[in-house]
């Protein structure tokens, strides 16, 4: 046992890293083939790139709390941070390899352009790495990770149930990010938003809510007994509304991240673009709640 241990940890670690990389490619490939991402990436300034990396690390850290790419089910808070750094690192390497393979980065590519492309393509890859444990796990009963609270204050019953509700919301977040991420950088969003008649946005909102409700509740795909037992079941209407708000927050974040919206744009543009992207995001969120 003592002799096989050193060999074992390296093999296990390699398996974990490759699993993470596989998850990264699964998630990252759609954006690899999106021309807008390359051009947005090439044209982005340095501070913005750093901000994108920072936001990615934050989201990956949140995902690592419940998903991650290692099999570990109990996690020390510092370990969660370290695993997020590793996930981001794996994401950078995978994205770089893919960009080189597709010749988006060559020897002649100027440094700033290569960095921009790399940073923007890293985002979906890193998210994929952080979700690798659950996306590549075939068995239906998925185990959620438990991250130990940093201090005793956070382990009070009220806060624990708030945390559980947030864990439930992460399915919405993952689904919405997955769908919205590959739509947000495209030119179709402002194009669609610009061509809508004034009150049409209300119709889009209604459709988003209706589809989200229909997918999760009316279609009756889900087995909700498990969540009901944990006492987390919000009423269907409330859950749909909360999920829609989450989808809208994700949409606006994505649009800002991809510089589709900036401060000089009028608020009407912010509103319409966000609501237009909110439709696919809320559908993704609903799908996420069913599947994850």
């Amino acid at each position: 046992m003592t002799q096989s241990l050193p060999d074992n940890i390296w093999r296990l670690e390699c398996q974990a890293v490759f699993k993470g990389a596989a998850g990264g490619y699964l998630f990252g490939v759609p954006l690899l083939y999106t021309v807008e991402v390359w051009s947005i990436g090439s044209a982005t300034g340095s501070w913005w790139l750093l901000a994108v990396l920072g936001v990615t690390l934050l989201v990956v850290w949140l995902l690592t709390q419940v998903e991650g790419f290692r099999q570990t089910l109990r996690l020390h808070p510092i370990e969660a941070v370290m695993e997020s750094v590793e996930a981001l690192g794996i994401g950078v390497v995978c994205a770089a390899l893919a960009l080189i393979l597709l010749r988006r980065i060559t020897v002649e590519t100027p440094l700033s352009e290569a960095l921009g492309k790399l940073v923007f393509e890293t985002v979906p890859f890193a998210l994929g790495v952080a979700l690798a444990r659950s996306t590549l796990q075939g068995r239906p009963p998925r185990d959620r990770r438990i991250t130990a609270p940093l201090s005793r204050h956070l382990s009070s019953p009220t806060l624990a149930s708030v945390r559980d509700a947030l864990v439930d919301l992460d399915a919405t977040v993952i689904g919405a990010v997955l769908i919205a991420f590959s739509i947000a950088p495209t030119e179709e969003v402002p194009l669609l938003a610009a061509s809508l008649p004034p009150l049409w946005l209300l119709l889009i909102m209604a459709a988003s809510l209706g589809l989200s409700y229909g997918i999760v509740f009316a279609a009756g795909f889900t087995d909700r007994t498990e969540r009901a037992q944990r006492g987390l079941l919000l009423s269907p209407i409330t859950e749909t509304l909360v999920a829609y708000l989450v989808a809208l927050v994700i949409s606006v974040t994505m649009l800002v991240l991809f510089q589709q919206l900036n401060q000089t744009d009028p608020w009407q543009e912010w509103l319409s673009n966000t609501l237009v992207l909110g439709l696919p995001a809320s559908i993704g969120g609903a799908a996420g709640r069913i599947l994850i």
Partner: protein
Amino acid sequence: MDVSNSPSNSSPDSPQPVDPPPSGRFTERSLAEWVTFAIASLILIGLVGLILYDWQVNQNRPPAFNVTVSEAVRITDGRYYVPFAITNTGGRIANGVQITAELQIEGEGDETGEQQIDFLSGHETKAGSFVFNHDPDSGDLVVRVASYRLP
């Protein structure tokens, strides 16, 4: 018997490692995991370093252009293909760089060509050709950058 024959395993039927206390040390992190962490950190620090270096070197220098027209004019089917190369000698990227070529020939009037380049990063070179019906050597050829957009 089992004591003498199993020197390394003091408790062969011991279960999986006991769950660590919820907020204890993280001793269960293996050496391999530390190596991964070290490599990942190095990659990220390197990336951030490159971004900062690029900012230091390039971001404060606005786009500037240098257009060179090649002497090697190609003649195919009576048309003259004049190769050109444009380089962004500045640091920042330029969008929609507009290159115009004007060929003035005595008594024949002007011939013009236009070319738009979508993205031209700092230090990047892109090449193409202008096509004329008249021999550019017999007239006055002016190739220049007319305009560009900032991203």
